[in-house]
């Protein structure tokens, strides 16, 4: 797992929040998570394959998700309905699309993001690599980006 693969997504996330949502975000120090399957209320998954393989998960608390999507669509959402999940998916889609630009030099394929709620979904992290979490703080609430990538030997 190298910074050159991870940073594009982090930059895209910050860019999206700042430019699109008008929210200030500050990244925190990355650390290794104890329980890789521990997710917040709403999570969006981006899969990567190629010279590095693994996944990136953006995880939001319910409130953060609602606030973010409300801000995005201009409508106030009060419940985690399909529309909100849609919105989260869209956001992550944009993040993935923008990150792609910085990954053109590498042979990597990005999968369509999927959105899940709760903890019941089991993420297929690559074996032998820990999952690192980068926390973010924003005006709409905190969220994190969990990432685990394994390079081909």
């Amino acid at each position, binding site marked *: *797992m*190298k*910074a*050159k*693969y*991870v*940073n594009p997504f982090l930059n895209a996330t910050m860019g999206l929040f700042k430019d699109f949502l008008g929210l200030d975000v500050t990244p925190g*120090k*990355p*650390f*290794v998570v104890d329980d890789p399957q521990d997710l917040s209320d709403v999570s969006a998954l981006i899969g990567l394959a190629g010279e590095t393989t693994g996944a990136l998960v953006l995880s939001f608390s319910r409130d953060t998700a609602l606030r973010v999507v409300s801000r995005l669509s201009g409508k106030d959402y009060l419940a985690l309905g399909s529309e909100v999940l849609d919105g989260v998916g869209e956001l992550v889609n944009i993040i993935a699309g923008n990150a792609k630009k910085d990954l053109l030099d590498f042979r990597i394929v990005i999968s369509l993001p999927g959105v899940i709620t709760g903890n019941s979904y089991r993420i297929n992290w690559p074996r032998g*690599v*820990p999952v*690192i979490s980068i926390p973010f703080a924003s005006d709409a609430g905190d969220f994190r980006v969990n*990432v*685990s*990538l394994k390079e081909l030997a």
Partner: protein
Amino acid sequence: MKTTRSIRFRIVFGLALIMVLSVGLSIYLTTVNQRDNLLDASQRTLAINNEMLNATIRNIMLSGEAPIANQTIDDFRAITGFLEFEVYRTDGTTAFNDYRTLDFVNEFQDRVMFDPTPRQERRILESEGFERVLRHKSPVIIRNEDTREMEYLFPILNYADCRACHGTEQFVRGVSHFRISLGGIYEQVNRAGTLRTVYFVSVGLVLFAWILLLMRRTVVRPVLKIGEAVNVAATGDLDVRVELDSDDELGMLGDQVNHMISGLRERRDLELRNRVVETRLQENRKYLDNIKEGLLLLDRDRRISDQYSVFLTRLFHREGIAGLTLPEFLYPDAERDADRRRELETFLEMLYTNTTAAMDMILSINPLDEAELSVGSGETIVIRADFLRIYDRDELANVMVIFEDLTDINRTRHELEEQRSRREAELEQIATVLKAGPQVFEGFLDEAELAFSELGTHLADLGRPDYVARAFRSIHSVKGTARYLDFPRVEELCQDLEELLAEIRDGRRLPDDAVESAAADIIRRLDAEVAAVRRLIDRFRDFAGGGRLPASPLEVFTDRLTGMVRDIAADLEKSVDFALESDLADIPRLAELQPSIVHLIRNALDHGIEDEYERLAAGKDSAARLVLRFRKADRQLVVEVEDDGRGLDLEALEKRGLETGLLKPGNHLPSQIVNMLFRPGFSARQEANDISGRGVGLDAVKEDVRAMKGQINVRTAAGKGSAFVLQIPLGEDSE
């Protein structure tokens, strides 16, 4: 005009002539014919008359009574028309003028048949015709035109009935002679002639007029019309038309003439248009020759037309580009630029064939938006090409390509950027100096001044390879320090000098006078820069009031290193904690060791230490730990640069050594592999980056350490980190 008159005149004249001739001839012929016919008829009548006369006379003569005969003859003479009527004897004398015949007859008959009666007057006819009659014994007609008389002479033959009295001797007894006037006939003929003449003339006139009219209508007028039209056309007015309604040959001729004229008109219009086009082309040419833009036009089959601006040829240092395709023009080297050609071709394909996408969508993938091209003599230019579709009615006719030369703009932009960053750097420098105090820089300035003056005085030694290598290393070190102390101009100049030394070292250039003077020039400039920095420092020293205690060399060095590590780590996007551990407050021979220590630290940052995520993935802290340690052991100074990074990957290094030939085939001990690192020509990465430097490998460190009579060792564990250990002897050998 003369022509038309002539034709008309000729026709009229000719027709009149013909008419006159034919009428005249007709009149004449008919007149003569009639007269002759009349005369002949008259003659015939006369002959019949004569026969009657003859018969009468004969019969009278038979009776023998001359007076009766004379009377009869007199009566005949009285008839109108008879000018003369006489009977003559064969001797030419008039009959009954004497008694000869009477006497003869009486004698012949032997009796008196006839009593003497009064005699006629004796006349003698002298006429040529008389002789002829007597000769030929047949009638003779003499027509006298002058007197308009006709004479008829016929022989009186001695018929059988007559012979009884006149005997058989004479064949011809006499000649009967008529003379009649034909005047009446002539008059009649003339009279008829006048009528006829009038008749013929009027018929002639009518015919004349009619033929004339007909000719005029069917021939002359059309011909004149055609002629007039042609004349008008000849003067230049090609809008004239022949208006003929007839559908005969002249009508067709008129149509042909019209065709011809309209053909001429078309040609004239074409020529006019051509001239206009020519003028416009020339104007275009003038425009193209003068505008300050690179402009070219691609035609329908995507080739460059001959409409391109002179500026373009100057920009690309190429002439005669008409007929080439755009990729051929911009990328003449088909092999090297195959990809770029293909990209441009795809783009052009879209420009030409796509009809759905908006222009700005197509232009968003314009491959010539700030593209670098090599032109002519190996120069590189930066251009932006704009594309414009040009339509002719609804079809795409051309694509105009407008080139903007951005080379200067780019350069200017870069320069501005550089100036800006230089200014920013200067500000930062000032801030740093204010913060850290001038001492930090003084060490650098000392080192730099030393290096420059050393090299400056030993330029002649550039012929020695070992000296060149050393000079290179010292300048490289100064450059590095200048870099993290943010002296970009010093760094740049050092870079130039470094490159020059590298060329000499690698044998690409010979250390001749030109090289020496180039090096001297750079050194001069470096001295100037350093002097400027010194002045800056002095000023701030005054400003700062010199409040701080002069720091120890080690402190200064450590400060410097901390800053350097921070900057480099940020550049490499790595998280590094740097620490100094030292038993000693003062490090002997520190100045000599500095370049090596700096190099080892840089090495560790570049190759040894991983980024945050790699470290976390490996179960380490995200921030790497880099330690510089000074220890004293026996009579030695031990310097360690230790990191908790990747450590040396001996397998990979062995492989690389085998590949590059630095290691002979076979198995190797770790120590052998590690030793390879210190060989000149070894570089841990394919691309040498600026931080480690090209050609400045660990061999330089080894040399420096050896020069100090020391040793260098490496401690490493894969995945855990490495430590480079220098052991320098202390004592009277130190220098």
